[in-house]
């Protein structure tokens, strides 16, 4: 009995494992292509991020802020005489 069942079961196991190998390599290929897509997306996002970071720092650069404040908005540093120092309610000052 065992002499007959053993080869048969080994054969089936081998077959199943062979199919499993085929299946898993298929899955790996699918996952790998997904990873590629995600990696490309990451690259693109990083591209956007760096560009926005640079754009932001260009727009917010002290150079630009100063020239807009002084030329377009005619702003100046306040004179000392118009300073108002707000004290905390309990009157505690240094």
């Amino acid at each position: 009995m065992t002499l007959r069942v053993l080869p048969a079961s080994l054969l089936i196991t081998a077959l199943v494992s062979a199919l499993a190998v085929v299946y898993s390599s298929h899955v790996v290929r699918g996952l790998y292509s997904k990873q590629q897509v995600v990696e490309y997306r990451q690259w693109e996002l990083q591209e956007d991020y760096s560009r926005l970071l640079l754009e932001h720092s260009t727009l917010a650069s002290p150079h630009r802020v100063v020239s807009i404040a002084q030329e377009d908005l005619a702003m100046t540093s306040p004179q000392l005489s118009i300073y108002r120092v707000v004290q905390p309610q309990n009157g505690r000052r240094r």
Partner: protein
Amino acid sequence: MSRSKKIVAKPALWRLIFIAFCLFVLFGLLVSRLVVLQVVDQDRGARFLKQQGAMRSVRTAEIPAYRGLVTDRRGEPLAVSTPVVSIWANPQQLKDSVQIARLAMTLGQTPEALSERINLYSDKQFMYLARHQTPDQARAILDLGLPGVRGEREYRRFYPAGEVVSQLVGLTNVDGEGIAGIELAYNEWLRGQTGKKRYLKDLHGDAIRNIGVIEQARSGKALALSIDLRLQYLQHRVLQRAMVETGATAGAAVTLDASTGEILAMTNHPVFNPNSRDGFDYAATRNRVVTDVFEPGSTMKPLTLVAALESGEFTIDSLIDTSPGRIRVGRKVLPDPRNYGEITVSRVIEKSSQVGVTKIAQQLGHESILDVFQRFGLGEPSSIGFPGERSGVLPNRQRWSDIEKVTLAFGYGLTATPLQIAHAYAVFANKGSQVPLTLLKRPESEVALGHQVISKEIAEQVLEVLNRVTGSEGTAQKARVEGFQVGGKTGTVHKVGEAGYLDDQYVALFVGVAPIEDPRFVTAIVVDQPKGDNYGGGAAAAPIYSAITDGVLRLHNALPASEDESPQFVGLGGGA
């Protein structure tokens, strides 16, 4: 019938067996050969063949790592890595293409120049066509679909703040390794780990299948500096303008927070643009605040004052007779601008009187003055670890001549960097304790530990004298800041040439502490070779200090405390 059958069948059987046997042997030979090639590992067996196959088709590629961001203390970016594409080609495949002219046009080169370069590398497998193209530019080139032309992902470093922090942040080379400044000093921290992946290529070198990642790329870590970009920009602007006004060849400025040891701003002149590598001056990449040493001159007189006060022989109100306005030491005569008569020790510093300081120094001896210099950190490198940093030298002589003993008290005969001078003054601003310097932002939870260099009382007395230097009798009236009380000391030093001190070339210095009631910010200014009559520390360097400190105090919401123009105080609910 049956006989004839037997006659036909008999020879057929042994022939059949023979043929079958031959075929079987041949088949057996094939199988054994296969086993030899695939399983048995002889000298040209399985492993050798596998290797040969891999050599022809499996390639390893690098995955670039993202270099960490450098920011200022408020998170403003100072150095950013952006993805770019480098275009390369296999000249063997490209050289016969008819589309070279179109490629040259897209690359922005002349067809002749490109053909020449391709011919130059015609026996190679690899040449760069254009490095660091923006992704859009690269796409335009790759979309031409030329044989052997491929793109490679890389990162390029951009410096959004440009020349404002150029010497401090430094540079990376074209391969993304730090070569100067912070980029070099913290290269290991910033750079990350390049990854590796394996792929299969076809005959033309195109990747057909990725096998997998051997090593993941690891991104570099971000670095927050102690610099405040707003302050850095302000300091840069003030310094550049002053360089034009004074006609100086070089200049440096540094601002410290004495309570935490953080360097808030550090600028130099001349500057360079770190975003363009075409024809920049390597001398301009020097961070003069830490790499240039010179004699600190009169800015050391407050340290001599410390030695005088510590000796117990002087108070700031002790009287010193400076008549007749000059004094002979050895073979030299040291003059004052005019005869100040009998003045207090405080007034000696205010007026920067040579005669007064000489008399103090002669009474103290040089050892105690040298000891104070040493305790203030002069002659020793700071803790910031900046590439190319120098530490200056304190004199170490067997025999001291009379004039050497005296000039040490004026700050001659020793050298220091602007940073060291600022750090020495931080002692006065921090109740006599000196906190180690840092270029990195200190976490707010971290308490900066200093060590007590001088007593709190002496620090306060020196501060009071420094404040008087900017007063109506002092040498640094131009250092005053409207609405605040500040203190500092000027210095004017002869430059050293090949044949000793030069008569017509000076270094103008100013070091100041602000605000006097709650001292915290120390700023040192150095102006190298100011032209014209306004070459002194009080005329060339003090106004720069005033403009910078005005901004420093405003940005930190310091409370104005001027005697003449007091601001109005209102309660919280009151409004104004």
